[in-house]
């Protein structure tokens, strides 16, 4: 069902300032990184939604959580 995350390599190479290569192995690691980030984000958003007693995650839940998660995910 869920297949390979498409375009990850192109995204990274695009956003990188200097021309840089990405190995397939490291591409897998990048996918791991994104998955971890997304999982944490989803979890936080879910908790936030629960706080508001809503079983559905909505956009404002996500927005409130995003800043915190982005800060946490900076290396």
């Amino acid at each position, binding site marked *: 069902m869920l297949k390979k995350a498409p375009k990850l390599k192109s995204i990274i190479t*695009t956003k*990188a300032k200097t021309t*840089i290569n990405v190995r397939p*192995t490291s591409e897998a*690691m990048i996918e*791991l990184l994104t998955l971890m980030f997304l999982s944490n984000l989803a979890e936080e958003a879910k908790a936030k939604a629960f706080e508001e007693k809503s079983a559905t995650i909505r*956009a404002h*839940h996500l927005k409130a959580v995003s800043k915190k998660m982005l800060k946490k995910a900076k*290396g």
Partner: protein
Amino acid sequence: MDPTEDLSSRVLLTHILSTETPRTPITRSASQQLSTSATKSSPRLRNKYAVPQTPKAILKLSQIHKLRESISRQPLNATNATRGRTRSVSSRLSNMHAANSMVLEDGETPRHLLMNILQTEPVMTPLTHGRAASEGRQPSSANLSKRCSIELSGLDLPDLTIGAASTQKRLFRKRHLTFDISAFEKRLNAGEDLVDENEESEQSSLTLSSPTLKTPFVEVRTEKRGLQRRALQRRRISETGFDAAVDGWSMEGETGRGQTAQSLSKTTSSEGFTLGLSKLSDSDITSEIIHRHTALCAQPGAMTDNLSIVATRDKPTVRVEEEDQMEVEQMEVELGKDKSVYAFPTEGGGRTSKWKFDCDDQMKDNATVAEEETGVAESLDTVREDAANTEEEENNVEAPTELEDTQTEEQDGVDSQVEEDVVPDTQTEEQDGVDSEPEGVAEAVSQSEEEDVAPDSQEAAVDIEPEEDSAKSQSEEEEETADDQSEQEVPAEEVEDDLADSQPEDKHDGKPEGEDAEQPSEQEERDLEHTSRRAPRSEGPLVVPVTEAAGDLDDATEEGWSDGKSKAPSSLHMESPKTHASYTDADPGADNENSFHLLELANDTKDGLLNDKSPEEAAEEEEEEEEEEEEEKRKKKRRRTVMVSLSIPSKTPAFVRQKMNFFQPKPQNIQASSRTGEAIPVPKPKPVRKKEKGPAKKQTELPKRYLMDVFKHFAKTKVSPDVYPVLRDIMDKYFDRLAEDLETYALHAKRKTIEVEDAVLLLRRQGHVTDTVPVEVLIEKYLRMEQRKLLIPIATSGNVVIPKKRL
């Protein structure tokens, strides 16, 4: 106890032997009985023979009875009941031998037994004679044999001689002694009233032996439990230890790398497992730890290496981190600046400051024009209030004050155009323009000051002026309403840009109110009304000088320009207040021309302005453009491009020039589209905008389907689809940071390729990978199999490891 018991038993035996008369017990072939499973028979025989004559006999019989019971219960061994009198002796013997219940054989007198016992080898004390049946059991035979040996050895001391034959059997039965002992103990404890101390002692010895029997088994359990307990204890301890270790790391991280590395490695290795458990309460982590175990087991070397690497990494990373942080901060600062700088051309309309710079540059270009226009603007202000009167006054004012013939002519042309425009429109615009006029005046003054600075701008202005003049003259000649409208649409876009630039330059107070209004408003980029108003105003003075010098330009082109200019400002007017429509028509050529040229000059195309105005202008533009001639427009465009390039090179940065070049074809597109149909120009600006961003900015978005699927999977609750835009933005930012970090790490390592270790380092810094949670755990948890195969070596048959270790 044993020695004492032995002694006591010995004592007893000797005593017995000495005291009691040697009776000839009813003894059958003891050996026969011993050999055979005559356990049962022996007691019967005993019973038959054993006539309870003495208390000892009675005791003996009772013992026999018990033995029988025990035998019936435990078919383990043929317990040897004590024989006859020497019940105690036999019991002792049995006890001594660590044997089961002693079955006395009728055939053998106790003396014989004792003798046999003595004769038997110390190690090989058979003890029980009647234990033929219990051969099958040999559990703790070894222990029993040992005990028996010990006990027998003790027995050897007393004067007892035992038949050699019995020894073998006894030896054979040693194995069963264990069970017999326990059984015998039970019997002894349960039934008899221990008379002899020895018995008790024996029993105690037996009891002692029994625990010894049990202990090994229990020990095993305890050992296992002990292991488990130790693990738990480790976990608990590790929490505190971990903190200590972490502190130790941080302290030592920068100093003794080697030592700390070792210590770290040790701590990690020792506390590795437990730390994970202690620190993390998630159940998943236990599984992870288990995985870790497996991973460790699979790759012990690798793990240790990882640990050591991890340990060593912390220190260098600590230092590196500091450095990286510095670098990153610096880079971020730089990037921020770059981004801010870069943002302008890409984001277009939103950046007024940038445009202001450009405007300033262009303002300098139009310096000469501004000077003249300021006076005109002021005059225009007064004129605005009276639509027709103002125009006339402007003309009057301009005429005598012809610092430059071209300018005045342009202004006159503008005024004429203004006059021709519908008066009510101007009136309405005037009202709006009044507010903007003072702003425009102030700006014009400031601009005039700036004008003196740039010689190049003057040159450019000069170039523009003749064009404007020519355009103005053309505008005067041409019909203003229809043409102006169409032209206004065409140059509207350009005008917008120019208007934006011309905002600071309120040279054109002489122009209709709308122009002045447009200029300052454009600067703010918020009041379309102002901007639209200003455009014509600004265009006016600009047009004047241009038209004057525009001798070289073809009349057609000039007309087109003028039309464009008139249309542009008029269109701009239309956009904002919507009342400008008529006004724009009223101010045909001059306004359009001015705005047009301004746009060309500035070329700091504000996408926002253009876009904002484009839809509004579209209607007007469509009308106007249709009427314009394509050739004229094209020529204008070419000239515009040339003019722009002349005016801009020195001052505007490259990307701005690119933007200008970009925007130049824009009006062309619009003009062309306008001819085709009304509907096209409307969407055109938008796709054109995206196209501009396209080559400059690549598509960096994950597919919607994939993103939402993954998010829903992790969320495990319902997710409304309106989260997608937010999520997309978040991911965009995240990818920015991710790429930046990875690139930084790779470059720091003087590599041009992002490696796995870079990503691992990032994971570590984010806190997903710790000393307790290695990367492999995460890999196994989140990634698919094919990716896992890439990352974690898998050993296959033939000593082949996939993927190949490149070493």
